[in-house]
Each structure stands twice: as C-alpha cells, then as structure tokens.
C-alpha cells in the first residue's frame, strides 16, 4: 500500500491505496466523488477529465500516487456554493448535454480550454475537443455552449 495525500475540491485528503490505483479510481471509490466517469480503457473518451494543479488531465492516465501533493478539482468542486460555474450554466442554457455521462469531462475540458484561449473560435473548440467523446449531442450544442461561455468570460 502507498500513502497518498492531496487536496481535492479544497479539502485535504489522505489514504492508503494500492500502488496501481488510478486517480479516477481513488476519486470515485475512496472519496465517493462519482461525478468523474470512466467511459473507456484507452484514455480516449475524456469522461474522467479533472483539473490537477489547474490543468485538465484525464484522471485514468494518472496514478493516484502521481497526484501526491497536488491540488485536484473535480466537477463537484466547480460551482461555488449555489453559484454554478459559467461553463456549467452554458451547458444547461445551450442544451449541451443529453445523457450526461460525458458531461463532467466535457465541462472540465471546456473550463481549461477557455482559460488557455482568450479568444476561442469554433474551429479551435472542435479541435480541442478531440479527447472528449460524446455519443448523444453530435457536439453541435457542446460547441455552442463552450463558445457562449467563452464569450461571457
């Protein structure tokens, strides 16, 4: 077993985990933060995207031990109290989700994307979504939501 310690959504957490535990398993199984999803086993789908030290990361590609000492934000930590994050609001306003399974990863990717690109255009949004797969929306309204949130930021 390995001891890991990190800050998740503002709280310090410690646990003994098997060394092979992935960050996404640690978040879901140890911390009960089930908003972060697992949609594949090849790091393609992006349902598991969280922020590690401010950067969007696929939490299935990282061991929990590699996040030692890191600051992690999951979709559960995005809203401030009752105040939804502007990207969360934009997804709702623009019908950027249907079944909701890819949504947490999409939102976490979008927050990071907007932060890194002060002036986003449609082509960039579509290219940057390469690592997030949605089967429901055809991306039309996801792209619209991200552009709307970027505009409002």
């Amino acid at each position, binding site marked *: 077993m390995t001891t890991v310690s990190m800050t998740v959504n503002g709280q310090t957490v410690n646990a003994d985990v*098997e060394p*092979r535990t992935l960050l996404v398993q640690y978040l*879901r199984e140890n911390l009960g*933060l*089930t*908003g*972060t*999803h*697992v*949609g*594949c*086993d*090849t790091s*393609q*789908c992006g*349902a598991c995207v969280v922020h590690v030290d401010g950067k969007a990361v696929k939490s299935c590609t990282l061991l929990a031990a590699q996040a030692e000492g890191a600051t992690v934000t*999951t*979709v*559960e930590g*995005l*809203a401030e109290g009752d105040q*939804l994050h502007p990207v*969360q609001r934009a*997804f*709702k*306003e623009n*019908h950027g*989700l*249907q*079944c*909701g*399974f*890819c*949504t*947490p990863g999409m*939102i976490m990717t979008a927050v990071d994307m907007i932060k890194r690109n002060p002036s986003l255009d*449609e*082509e960039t*949004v*579509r*290219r940057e*979504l*390469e690592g*997030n*797969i*949605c*089967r*429901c*929306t*055809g*991306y*039309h*309204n*996801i*792209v619209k939501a991200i552009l709307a949130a970027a505009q409002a930021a």
Partner: protein
Amino acid sequence: MSESGIGQSVKRKEDFRFITGAGRYTDDINQPRQTYAYFLRSPHAHARINDMNLDEARAAPGVLNIFTGEDVAKDGLGGLICGWTVHSKDGSPMKAGLHPILALDRVRYVGDHVAMVVAETYAQAKNASELIDVDYEELPASVVTATTTDKGSAQVHDEAPGNLCYDWELGNPAETETALKEAAHIVTLDLSNNRLIPNAMEPRAAIGDYDKGTGNYTLHTTSQNPHVARLVLSAFVGVAPEHKLRVIAPDVGGGFGSKIFIYAEETACVWAAAKIGRPIKWTAERIESFLSDAHGRDHVSTARLGLDPDGKFLGLHVKTKANLGAYLSTFSASVPTYLYGTLLSGQYDLPAIHVEVDGVYTHTAPVDAYRGAGRPEATYLIERLVETAAREMNIDPVDIRRKNFIRAFPHQTPVIMNYDGGDYEASLDKALELIDYEGFSARRTASEASGKLRGIGFSTYIEACGLAPSQAVGSLGAGVGLWESAEVRVNPTGNIEVLTGSHSHGQGHETTFAQLVSDRLGVPIDDIEIVHGDTDKVQFGMGTYGSRSGAVGMSAIVHALDKIEAKAKKVVAHLMEAAVEDIRFEDGIFSVAGTDKTMAWAELALAAYTAHGFPGSELEPGLKESAFYDPTNFTFPAGCHICEVEIDPETGVTRIVNFVAVDDFGTIINPMIVEGQVHGGIAQGIGQALLENGVYEPDSGQLLTGSYMDYTMPRADDLPNFSLGFTKTESPSNPLGMKGCGEAGAIASPPAIINAVTDALGVRTIDMPATPARVWAALQSAKQSNAA
C-alpha cells in the same frame, strides 16, 4: 401558451444533477458488503470447451466463487430469449439454438461468456480469471455475412442447418417480377450496410442483490426498459418470480438500442447474488462493450428498381442477407424483417415490392436494434437506388422524387404499412431553400477552383415509429404488446407525480413530460415530478426505443390526465354544489359556468384528500388515475436531408460543408430537445457513412475494432454544424399528434452523405464508411477507367 407548456424550449430539469456531478449511474451506486464480478470471455470465435480447471483460480486471493454454465444449468435457468418469432417462406418458425447465460460446451464468438468470477474486489476477480485453465478445441469459424450460408461453412448452431435462421419474405413476388419486366429502365445496386457498434458512453453495468429475509431480488442495471428486463428474467430465464424481483434503471448514460436487451451479465449478477449471499457488481470495460454489446446493421443486399421511361417507379425487388451474429438477441429477429422490409416503399408510390431476407448466423457478437433499427438499412437502400436512377436517366434527383411522392393519404403500401399522413413536398421544398440548391453549381465551381471536388446528395426518408399497436405487432410475431402506461398522482398539496413506463436516458423526459402536464393542468413544471426506471414504483411499462416515448408514452399520460380532470370536476361539482357538466377548467382554475365561483388547483387537491362530506360510494377520496395507451397505428415521421461535401482528391478526406435536415415530427413539445435529438442522430449517421465500421478478421473472427483506437467514433472536428428546419403535419393516430424524433437523424442521413460523396467523385457506388482510403482508391480507379 404558458412559458413551460407544449412548444416551448424549456431548459431541462434533469441538467442540474448532471452538470454538477450528482447524476447517479449504476456504477456510482455501491451496496454494503458488495462483491465484484469479472467475466472470463472466449478468446476464440468458435471452440469446443473440453475441460475447465478452476482450482487455482478458486484459491486466488479474495475469490468467493466461480460460476460456469454447468452451475446455471443445475439451477434450471433457461437461456436468453428472442421476443419476436419470424417465420420463413414455408411457414416454419425461425431456427434458434440455445443462448446460454454462461457457455456450456461451446463458445460461439470472441467475447462469449465462459465463466463468472466473484471476488472481494474487482482486481481480484479479474486477476483470478487469468488462472482459469480452459481446454479449448478451436474450431473453424464462419464470420462473413455474404458467405456464411455457403456450403461447407462452419455451423453456428446444429438447429440451424446452413446457418440460416429464417428466409423471410414480404410483398408480392409475381407483381414485382411483372413490373420489372415491363420497366423501361432497371437500376441494380449491390449494397452493404456496415456493421456498427453502439458505444453509449456509459458502459453496461449491473448490481445484483438478494435479501434472504424476504426472498426479494434487486437488480440495478443500465436498461432502457427495466420492466421488460424483469419480465424476461422471471418468466423466461427463471431467476426469480416477477413479484420478488425489482429492477431499477437509474440514470443511464445513453442506449441507442444497445440497452434494450437482456444480457448474460446482469442475469448472472442477480442470480449469483443469492448464491454468494452478498450483492455483486459488474461494470463493463470498454473492450467488453465492443465485444459483447449487441451490434447493429450488417446487411448485404442486391436491389433492383424498375422505372418507366419518365422515371416513374414501377417495382422494387430486394434480396438481403442480414447478419444476426452468433445468438438471437432480445428483438433481433424483427429488425431486418418487420422494421426493414415494411419501410421499403419510402416516400414513394411504389406499386409492387418484393423483399426477401435471409437472417443468418455467424460467429460474431449478436446483432440487434441500433438507433433506427432496420429503417436506416431500408432508407439507405431506397435512397441510393433513387439517386442512382436519377443519374442514369439524366433526371434531376429532386424531380425524380417529386414525380414519385405519395400525395394522398391514407396510403397503403405493398409492404404492410398504412401511411396516415404527411407532406413530403413541403419538407423537400424547405430543405432546398435552406441549402440554397440553386447556388450549388456556383459553389461547386468555386470548390473546383481550389482543387476540391464538391457533391450534393439527397435523402427523402420515411420511418415508422411510435412502436407500436399491440395487435399489429402481435400478428407479426411479437411476444409482447407495445402499449405504454402512465399513472398521475396528485398529492394533497397539489403537486404531482407522474409515473411512466417510458425510460429517459438522455431524451429529457423529466422536462418534456412535465411540460405536457403543466400545459394541461396549469401547474408549474417544478411542481411536477416524473418517476421512471423502477419496477417497484411504476407498475409496468415497455420502455424507451423506436422513438415511442412521445407518441406512445405521452399519449398514456394524456389519457391519465383526462381521467384526473374528470375526477377533479366531480370533486369540484360536489364542493360547489353544481352539476359536473357546468364545471370548467382552465389554466389551473375550476369555475362554475354562469357564476363567479372558482376554485384553485391546490384547493381542489387538498379537498380531494380531506374528503369531508363526500358521498361515500359515489365519490371516492383521493386523486390518482392511471391509463394504458395502445396506439392505433405506427407514426410516420418523414422529411428531407441534404448533404453537401467537399473532397480533397489528394488525400481522399471528405468534409461535410453543409448539412440540412428538415423533419416533420408532427407536434413538438420542446424544440430545443428535439433539435438535440436530430443533431445526435445525424452524428451517428455521419459516423456510419464516413467513419465507423465494426470489423471482424474474416478467418479468425477476432474483432479488429475493439477500442477507441481502432473504431472511429465521431469527434467534434469530424462534424459540421447542422442546419435544421421543421414542417408539421400532425399524426392522426395519437391525441397529441406527435410522431417521434429520436431516430430520424440516423435513418435519413447516411444515404444523403453517400449520395453526395458519389456525386463529388462521379462514381456509381462507394462502400460505407467512405474513409479517406476508400475515397482515394475510388478516385484512382475512376481515373484509370477514364484513361482506358
């Protein structure tokens, strides 16, 4: 019209939990003392199991038990069933071998279930599975749709000689042959409809639980129809009596058909939970989804369309081989027959049709309904034929369609369906306007100037959904009725719970169903809760597929609301000492005609439960009504999709530069949600036409496209923005005039895209998916034949 009523783009009630990470999908749920299952799967397409040694695996850390087909058989459980019986031309029923939950002495596809390991942790179960020693005797496999019925092919089931499950036909052979003989022109096309792997983003999952104290079983599962799952598991498989089995489908992350079916894994989890005495959880890894979710499509066809000298259609003959995979899945037999052959008339007055379908077995994963289910295959075939006929006869593809449209309703086709309404010209006209058809040649010239090839393609489609009148499907072989149920419970405080047999897994029922109730009763949608997905709460229901939840599920709610209103009026009449006939109800207010007496909704609701002074037998307390609604006909959404592509001849890359979809869905409850359904459907259609292909290695039967590295899921940068329009003719077959919108995009779009690609390339046909490699190769061979 209220802000939250019918026709308004109300933002979804369900979104809050999904955007905050508070959704509860099956894998998010954990039970006390939970154990984990891992399924050992066959690495071979076809093998005999001579022996299985479990000793080492049983001794591995954490292992609680290992189950095999023998254990299942010992408990007397039945196999998995196909709920639709199709008959061959000679009247004999389809030939089905046993579909065991865990393999007995043979495995029949890569991914077939060999053993179930249950352990304290998932890792322990998976590790232990590697210690199971299976003595496989590998056998030749039959994998390819076109050749599986050939003499000498490996046999999938002893019960189905020549791998033929059924040879089915529909229509009129003699009239069709006569029509084709008299035709001035015949278009013949050999078409394949590529195999697709559904890939809902949430992998399938199950938690089986058994309460020793009560003898009750509970199954949480990723299902589109939990009541059907319970019925099959109790009545046919025999896991538990229906009243002792609760099936819960909580938040479900997409289905597209693949979660209709009752699979081995959830069956084994709920069965074995009683043996272990603890809950058992299983969640598919994505590779297991690829291997063992039911796949879609996989047809090869030869079709002949006969026309008179003016381009009027005279007759259509279709011969199809439909791959059913290694076992019949829950509804698989119906998909390439009654959901396919019945749609071959398209939007056209086609006097003679004859369709013959061989349902064939192969050593591949079962094939069943996937978004559109049979109707995309029919639409692809007819719309490719029509476009090709137009080209060969030098008729504009728009004109040839206008020449053949059905214009008078009801219209009886030669293939069962009775179209009850529509206006195909209207959707075509609107689509032509949206795409700016007149400007196309200028756009093509502009593309040529930049070295690109531009093409345009049409698809004027029809589908039959709102599945389905029970009597009709019963007469065609369905083992179930396809009505829907609803129960409306008005609470004493006036808020409302609606229990529906439909299931929402992305469709937004919690919003649209609430809009319907709000519109009718004048109650705010936040005071209306839509309850679904739990057999302990909802009495029965047939679930969500076949674009049925609006046309059938909401119609059931309408009927329950009719009864609620009637009962409420009785209560109001009693309280106001007026005649029932004089009670009016509008915007949530009851009034007595000709007086100024009124009563608000909440006041009525409370009075219905206090029941003070109710005259006993004539007026019961309470306000709760239910209804079972059985549709009188299918519904017939129709429309026109037009696709414009630009192809780079250097690389073969196809870019969709313009995509227009105009659909007639009848009444629309929430345009925002309907548009979202169309977007998603078109994306899956573009996936089929340009990107996706489920490929088995033809000799070994190994799945070559078993991950997102190999199977091309549409990404955001593969797709354009879509331009949508709507026309409206109300369905005369249900009280709301709804037709259904969930599948249209996937049904209509593939032929529009391939018609555009072949137009751009100047070739007659190209197989789906039209990948850059195939497009490039087509261009090279066209060049060579031009040079020759």
